[in-house]
């Protein structure tokens, strides 16, 4: 399981170029920062109001003015800048983020995304998720391929949407899929799996890329 998360995060990290400005969702997406090559330095945006998010603050070294969007005490980089929510979401919505990495409950063939609400369950609220997936230049969904075996990549999302046609790429422990003009396309396959195995746990129809590559662990 830890292994699977590491695999997904490591692959997502390859999408980042030096200087990218990115927002990483809570949980697995946050791990992406740990897998960046040494020559790739990114600027992490924290939607509660800064660019230049660092890491979790050490116990006893917390700054009471510096939290991340999950409410945890964090550090900031020397190039950090802090701003209000109106500015934070101008950065997000205005296309100033090169990428965002988020988890998902469901993604469908159209690139629709559902990751914020389950009818009948207690509502948490969308927070910044809807703005992020509409605004970021590249929306990368990093998630386990299935929910305990049940497909999460569907023909049509059944849960309420976070946004329409917003997803650019899906990275799971099995494969990488990209939304291309011709449709959802399997572009990389992890050596542990076959295309048939991916199809068996993917409800959405997808194209297999002519130049299908191996999803490399590192």
């Amino acid at each position, binding site marked *: 399981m830890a292994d699977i998360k590491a695999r997904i995060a490591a692959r997502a990290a390859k999408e980042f170029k030096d200087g990218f400005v990115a927002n990483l969702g809570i949980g697995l997406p946050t791990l992406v920062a740990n897998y960046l090559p040494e020559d790739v330095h990114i600027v992490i945006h924290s939607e509660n109001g800064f660019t230049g998010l660092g890491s979790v603050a050490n116990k006893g070294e917390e700054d009471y003015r510096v939290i991340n969007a999950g409410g945890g005490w964090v550090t900031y980089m020397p190039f950090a800048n802090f701003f209000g929510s109106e500015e934070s979401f101008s950065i997000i919505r205005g296309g100033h983020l090169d990428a965002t990495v988020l988890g998902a409950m469901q993604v469908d063939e159209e690139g629709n995304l559902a990751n914020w609400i389950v009818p009948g369950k*207690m509502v948490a609220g969308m927070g910044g998720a809807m703005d992020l997936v509409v605004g970021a230049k590249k929306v990368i969904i990093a998630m386990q391929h299935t929910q305990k075996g049940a497909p999460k990549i569907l023909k049509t999302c059944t849960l309420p949407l976070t946004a329409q046609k917003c997803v650019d790429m899906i990275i799971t422990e099995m494969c990488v899929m990209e939304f291309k003009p011709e449709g959802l396309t399997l572009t990389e396959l992890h050596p542990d799996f076959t295309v048939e195995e991916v199809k068996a746990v993917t409800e959405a129809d997808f194209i297999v890329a002519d130049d299908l590559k191996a999803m490399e662990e590192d």
Partner: protein
Amino acid sequence: MKNKIVTAAEAVAGIKDGDTIMVSGFLGTGSPEILLDALVEKGVKHLTLIANDGGLRAEFTGTTDKGVAKLITAGMVDHIIASHIGMNPDIGNGALAGTMKYTLYPQGTLAEKIRAAGAGLGGVLTPTGVGTIVAEGKETLTIEGKEYLLELPLHADFALCRADYCDTFGNFAMLKATKNFNHVMAMAADTVLLASEQVFEIGEKDPDFYQVAGVYIDYIVKGEQPWQI
């Protein structure tokens, strides 16, 4: 010129049952705690609360309630307008029990709605929420082939804001991640209360020391404290 410096009790004295108030803070960080404490002490009811979230409950902080959780714990809020309520279970439970109502907006939309009220705009068009339940009941406009939701201004009777520094005119500054909704909320209410850690005399600091103009501020309360972690 008019003296704006008052006690916390004096600052909140005008807030009455049924008012709409906006309170800055992101999970408690950047919230004006001394104003919230004074408001709990005063004990108004049936508030509509505009805030990013429901604050943090004492169980989570390990100390006391932080931010607007204080108002919710005290049963003072009938309706919360926010972007995220998952960290304060009292809201979801209150909704199930029928004692509390919530309205959710995407966080960027919430910030723009508040700013629109403060800036005298009739609304803004945002791409966020198109094709989702957030769009229900809202007007959509298509501009150059792209669809947008028309989001209307969100105004309050009172805004409760927090600063690290201010002067006695109300020019104020916030440090690091305490900024969140403090600026836009200071623009968007009939009466604006500011709690500050430090209050300087007019002219004691260079004007560029302050980030937001004091013309928005009606009352200033000294003695806001750092969060004891």
